[in-house]
């Protein structure tokens, strides 16, 4: 616990540099990656990350230093070249886009590994540490690195913020943006440039291989929570930042743990949780929705049974025993009991000794369900010309789905009928 405090006090300059640097680069990658995600260019980021390797190797061979600015220039050039190559191959040849991406990724990465191996065997003494770009090594970050990263991060955020409107329309509908006279070529180049930049600074801590995760997963997680691009960008940056911070925390607490993979692990966990728990778009909320629907269907079917048995006795709110109800409609016992409990809680059913009867608001609800069922039967027989024996099963599920707006339309189209096709009366509210 003391270690955690020591980490968050940021008194250790190494901790300060590493954690700040990681947070900055994770946030930049997340924001830029959101546009790659929305443009369905997830793998392009992966290809660029791999393609940066030869640039770094060549920059080192030519300059003999590991100065981050020099190496980043090399990274930029080869990343840019890879982007151009992918676009050129897709446009000018018959190869599909995914082939172009795979081709560029493997060719550039192959060259990168080759050069890296050459450097390692050349024994120039200064070469150690270059292989950190393969798998990332945040702990090796220097103050100079941190400065470079923060400048780049600020630059990226400024670009995205000021071009927000243009990036939005370009990502959604590039043809429309072009016809509107917006400079789409320039927008594309700027977006490519910031993507390459974000990747170039990101690979230092997570490495070439895991970079795509840092680019795309924050966006995927953020998308689960929101349908607004603005909020999505903020959330993606937050998720990226938190992952960066926890990655450096974990490797601080246990120095044997690598930062990059832990950033990606944290990200993956956040993403999985988001995909499952997010409201509306999450898997859990879909499950709950399905459950609510099946409960609603059961409730309404039970109301129909009450209505039917009551009407048969010429009384609208007669007390009925559980056996009478169960004889009418086969529903398994526990579901039946649960439905009764729910209806009582809504005050649609009232207990009358051992028996149950509809309350006045329950009656209104029961009438609504029966009315929708019979209206839909009417619609099926009139508009779809279904035979009489086909009508009932087809209407059976619809009564639970028809909304008040649809009901109004249905009533208008059928001109307020009084009887259904089986000559049963259609119950109106009053």
């Amino acid at each position, binding site marked *: 616990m003391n270690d955690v405090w020591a980490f968050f006090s940021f008194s250790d300059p190494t901790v300060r540099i590493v954690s700040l640097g990681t947070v900055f680069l994770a946030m930049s990658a997340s924001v830029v990656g959101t546009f790659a995600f929305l443009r369905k260019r997830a793998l392009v980021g992966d290809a660029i990350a791999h393609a940066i390797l030869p640039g770094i190797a060549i920059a080192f061979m030519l300059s003999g230093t590991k100065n981050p600015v020099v190496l980043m220039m090399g990274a930029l050039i080869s990343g840019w070249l890879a982007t151009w190559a992918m676009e050129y191959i897709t446009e000018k040849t018959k190869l599909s886009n995914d082939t172009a991406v795979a081709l560029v990724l493997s060719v550039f990465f192959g060259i990168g590994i080759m050069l890296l191996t050459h450097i390692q065997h050349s024994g120039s003494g200064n070469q150690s540490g270059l292989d950190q770009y393969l798998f990332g090594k945040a702990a090796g970050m220097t103050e100079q690195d941190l400065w470079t990263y923060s400048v780049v991060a600020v630059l990226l955020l400024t670009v995205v913020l000021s071009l927000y409107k243009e990036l939005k329309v370009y990502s*959604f509908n590039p*043809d*429309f943006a072009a016809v509107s006279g917006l*400079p789409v070529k320039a927008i594309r180049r700027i977006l490519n440039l910031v993507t390459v930049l974000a990747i170039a600074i990101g690979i230092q801590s997570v490495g070439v291989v895991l970079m795509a995760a840092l680019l795309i997963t924050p966006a995927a997680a953020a998308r689960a929570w929101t349908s607004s*691009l603005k909020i999505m960008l903020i959330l993606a940056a937050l998720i990226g930042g938190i992952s960066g911070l926890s990655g450096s925390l974990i490797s601080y607490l246990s120095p044997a743990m690598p930062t990059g993979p832990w950033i990606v692990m944290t990200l993956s966990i956040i993403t999985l949780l988001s995909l499952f728990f997010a409201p509306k778009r999450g898997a859990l909320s879909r499950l709950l929705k399905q459950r609510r629907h099946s409960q609603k269907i059961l409730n309404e079917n039970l109301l129909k049974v009450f209505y039917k048995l009551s009407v048969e006795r010429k009384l609208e709110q007669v007390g009925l025993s559980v056996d009478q109800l169960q004889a009418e409609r086969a529903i398994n016992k526990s579901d039946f009991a649960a439905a009764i409990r729910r209806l009582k809680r809504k005050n649609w059913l009232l207990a009358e000794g051992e028996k149950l009867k509809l309350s006045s608001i329950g009656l209104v609800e029961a009438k609504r369900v029966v009315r929708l069922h019979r209206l839909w039967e009417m619609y099926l027989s009139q508009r779809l010309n279904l035979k009489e024996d086909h009508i009932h099963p087809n209407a059976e599920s619809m009564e639970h789905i028809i909304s008040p707006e649809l009901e109004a339309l249905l009533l208008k189209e059928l001109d307020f009928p009084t009887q259904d096709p089986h000559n049963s009366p259609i119950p109106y509210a009053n």
Partner: protein
Amino acid sequence: MENQTALEVHNLTASYQRKPVLWEIDFKVPSGHLIGILGPNGSGKTTLLRNIMNLMEADSGYVKIFGKDLDEVRSRLSYVPQRESVDWNFPASVREVVEMGRYRPGNLLRRLKSSDKQKVKAALEKVGMLAYADRQISELSGGQQQRVFIARSLAQEADIYLMDEPFVGVDAATEEAILSLLSGLRDEGKTVLIVHHDLQSAYQYFDWMILLNTRLIAAGPKEEVFNSTYLREAYGGKLNLLSKLGEIIAREQFPLREPDFKEKEGSGDE
């Protein structure tokens, strides 16, 4: 004003993935009409539209809008792409999509003005979608999506509207609403060109027609174009020789035009 030429397509030849799909298309469209671009599948309707908007490069020929190059009159032109051409799962609201109609080279890097926002609201009102302004676009029906696209186009306040299949997959109410909007635009003197594949409704919808099947069959007032001779020519099978030649060009990578072929540029007649 009434008979000003809104659009001139001059000897346009264009290919899609190296396969020529339009041969020597040449016609003029007067302003103030509701014009259907008709033809069977693969007859080059969308390619023609994309060429008019300079979204692809022609092999030869040129397009003039109000007698000028597209770049000089962009703000007078509005485009409604096919509904399926975008991802409706994109995180945006109805309002945000319609606001895109106000994004202009003139307000690059700047926020929209309140006058822009008013225009967006007016456009939403016209298509009956103002009540849905804050709805996520992923929650819309096909007809509503099309209305949003039309509203975005209306917000551009253009003089020529180019629409790619706006009637596909929409409900009857939307179809009617769109049609009356478009007729309204025509009555204001605007020119509306619509790529349309359904012959049945075409005669009722449009007052001018461009009949296409890789070459131009006919262009003119619907009474002149919509007759059995022209329709049979357009829909009665492709020109075999022409399409065979096209296949060879695509396969062997022949250039469609020799380098000194002229008419890539032109002054236009207006």
